[in-house]
């Protein structure tokens, strides 16, 4: 075994829970950074394809309602995380479920938006709109599944005691907030700019 291998193995073998948590957090943030680049490219493509033009047929009220639901789901996700970190598993489970429900309502809004859209996927704005909302909805859908998985793990006692043991739930909730941050930029770019 080389010296480098020995050092890496040693670092994993003797890392404290706090250090492991720090490494997990860093890994998740690196994932966020790489995923954010994909969304940034989609965002720039919207301006490249259709400048600052937004068709008047875009459903403004639906966009505002969907945005409000997603923002509100961030609060319930945050409440789930803090509850689980402090060992309040029952509240954490109910908040995770509520967040997943709101995420599903958001997805239903996206489907409704696609069905009612009066612009074509073939024109500049339509291409940007369907690709951006599609990519984002894919992340929301995976987030809903992850939230339900976290709830199941909470029920199985995986996060009992909170603290560093709650990292699994905390990481999933952070992913949910990341999806929310993406929408913070997508909403004005797709709906409000004209």
């Amino acid at each position, binding site marked *: 075994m080389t010296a480098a291998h020995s050092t890496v193995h040693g670092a994993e073998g003797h890392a404290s829970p706090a250090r492991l948590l720090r490494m997990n957090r860093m890994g998740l943030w690196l994932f966020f950074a790489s995923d954010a680049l994909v969304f940034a490219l989609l965002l720039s493509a919207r301006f490249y394809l259709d400048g600052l033009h937004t068709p008047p047929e875009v459903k403004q009220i639906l966009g505002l309602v969907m945005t409000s639901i997603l923002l509100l789901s961030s609060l319930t996700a945050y409440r789930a995380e803090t509850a689980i970190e402090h060992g309040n598993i029952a509240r954490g489970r109910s908040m995770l479920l509520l967040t997943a429900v709101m995420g599903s309502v958001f997805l239903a809004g996206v489907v409704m938006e696609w069905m009612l859209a009066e612009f074509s996927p073939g024109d500049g704005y339509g291409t940007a709109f369907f690709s951006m909302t599609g990519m984002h909805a894919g992340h929301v859908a995976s987030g809903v599944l992850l939230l339900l998985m976290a709830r199941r793990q909470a029920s199985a006692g995986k996060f009992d005691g909170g603290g560093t043991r709650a990292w699994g739930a905390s990481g999933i909730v*952070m992913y949910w907030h990341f999806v929310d941050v993406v929408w913070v930029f997508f909403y004005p770019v797709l709906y409000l700019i004209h």
Partner: protein
Amino acid sequence: MSMHGADAEQREQSAGVRVIAILAVLTIIEYIAAIAIGASVPLLVVLTPIALVKAWYILKDFMHLPRLWADEEEAA
């Protein structure tokens, strides 16, 4: 859960409500600005910093960005 833990949880949850209230106000401002401002470029100039502030609040308070450079024990 101890009383101390319950108090800490309550404090953190109140902080979450404060952040969501700020995000709601900024979203309403965005929406009104889009109605009130007719020209594209001035609207973009108004909406961009609002989106950045909203993202910053989520990153800092909900995603705990400062924990990345906190001491290990403190961050745990």
